[in-house]
């Protein structure tokens, strides 16, 4: 067992699960989408991205790319949330919530690709 692999797998999967948790629920209902969960998803995604830095294999490059996509989407969602809560006069409406959740849904897709890559990597690893 390799501790580095454990940490790596942990963060990749946690990023996907947190993302999924935020995404779950009615798309335009702000009450079922917790902003703390979005915050946690952003932070864990950033950590997962940094963990993928510096890997020179092809697989590592795709890993990094998916994480960057997820970061981009989640940060866009967080910015949108901030705009709606602080700047917009209309506040957090149903349509803004839908945009935020759909952005996080995109990030969820990228995170799922990341998890698939992780599984492929593990499956193709052969001992000896």
């Amino acid at each position, binding site marked *: 067992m390799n501790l580095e692999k454990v940490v790596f797998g942990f963060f990749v999967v946690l990023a996907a699960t947190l993302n999924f948790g935020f995404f779950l629920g009615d798309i335009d209902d702000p009450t079922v989408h917790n902003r703390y969960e979005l915050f946690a998803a952003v932070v864990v995604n950033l950590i997962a991205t940094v963990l993928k830095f510096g890997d020179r294999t092809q697989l590592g490059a795709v890993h990094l790319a998916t994480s960057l996509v997820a970061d981009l989407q989640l940060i866009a969602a967080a910015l949108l949330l901030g705009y709606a809560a602080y700047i917009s006069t209309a506040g957090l409406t149903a349509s803004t919530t839908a945009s935020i959740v759909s952005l996080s849904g995109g990030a969820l897709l990228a995170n799922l690709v990341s998890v698939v890559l992780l599984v492929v990597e593990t499956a*193709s690893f052969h001992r000896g």
Partner: protein
Amino acid sequence: MGNPLLLVWWRLLAWDDDGRRTSRPPPPEVAVPHAEASAPVFLVLRRMRAPLIVLIVVFAVSVLGLTLVPGEDAAGRPWRMGFFDAFYFMSYTATTIGFGEIPYPFTPAQRMWAMASIYLSVIGWAYAIGSLLALLQDRAFRAALALQHVTRKVSRLGEPFLLVAGYGRAGELLGHALDRLGRRFVVLDHANERIDDLELDSFHADIPALAGDARDPGHLAVMGLGSPSCEAVVALTDDDEANLAVVMAAALLRPELPVIARATSAAMAERMRAFGSPTVVDPFDSYGDHLCLASRAPATYRLLTWLEGGPGAELPALGHPPREGRWVVCGYGRLGRSLAADLRAEGLAVTVVDPGPGRADEDADDDLVVGDGVDPDVLARAGVRTAVGFVAGTDNDTTNLSLVAAARRANPGLFVSARQNRPASAPLFAAMAVDTLLVPTEVVAREVYAQLATPLLWRFLREMPRQGDAWAAELVERLTALCGRHLEGLWTLPLTPRAAPALGSWLAGGDARLGDLLRNPDDRDRQLHALVLLVVRDGQATLTPGADFLLAPGDELLLTGWAAARRALTTTLTVDSVREYVVSGNRVPAGWLWRRLSRDTRAPEPAAGRRRG
């Protein structure tokens, strides 16, 4: 296998149709390590993982805490900070800008948390910046950076260049000579200090240099072995094995490239010649040849060393090594063996002095005196009193100097030759005024220079000994009368339509005399200060052709002379009116208008006709 996805794909394909698709991929070409070129970025990313994660965690914990700690708004009602405000507060606090407490003054609980956040974030930043600075100082990182830098410089080198592996004394001498000629080269040496010296040295051109092992084909590839602009490879390291490795790499990866390598033994030279056809320079062997040439034809030898010295070299003194008699050679190492064999081949008797009794046992050598040459008794036994020549050829400069002194004391009339191993000993040998001095690195540098400078010079130097000593003496006379005692520049001139566009009709006329070409464009009664050393036509060489030599299109000329003469000659070659004046003495107008006018006065018919048509 760094790529499991591809591996899976590959296997799937292989199962599909294992006849064709499992065939091996083609072998890579010269391994240009592109991955190495981007190494610094990966190094930074890899090393910065931990600091960046620490920063992210510090920020996340601080921001989360700020949103959770209870606060009060302006009216004193309970209030909690949002993520946006919390992140804003942390951003300016962590970067030590500090705008204060917003949007409402903090409660004591919030202040406590903010205080903890401040210390945490300062530690996080200090760690991240410290890691980055440490990385910049890191040796591995700097090496990766230098490699990338050199790779980029070499790949951008558009002009033809030479790859010089080994920048010792010989490499340095060669480098300066090439630089004076305006040739580009790149340098690979395993010693960091030599690369630093090179970077501090003053060259006209920018010399890409890398500290790396010449035995590694990857390093050779970085230095442009695979580049189409690379025109030759020179292996000058002080390690024969490394030189052999360079010869091998060049012969296997770029078989068409000319290779020049230094070797210090005949066996190594043979091993090198097994790979393609490298030119092997053996300083000891060529010194023996030079010494024999000097004793047989002193003027030829003088001319040879002068021309090999490169532009600016001073005319060497005419030596008079004895033609007959007995030589005493001290030191029967690589130099001693080679020299003794050469001298014996010339018909001279040789007595060898060597301290090691076992070293010369395989030679059926009667004239071997075992003992330390510094001992006067041993020198007496070797017969220094009756000898004509003496060679101090050990690999120790102190020993050589004392050998020279001892031999001179025993026999003041001796012709003394010595070997200088270290550059630092040069003043001592100069003060000793030995008759011929062997500096192996200089011999190598000169020979390699003569081969690389212009192909015609090398041709000339090889043809020259056949012309005889009197011819060489006369040529030295002519050269000194023309240009003085310092050698002027050498240049090659092909009489092609491209290089000499104005000569076409004159050359085709069949009466193109060399003497006419070398007239001064300002006053054709004076000759240019230039001398043609060699004319090559269809592979046939003519040395120092006279003024009546008839030139033909396609001839290649090797000239030496003043830079001004070279410029004047270029004018003759490219400007029709100048060529006309130089060759025939007719002043022809150069401008279009004057030519048109003068043609009208001289030959109105065709001009008028052309105008109508």
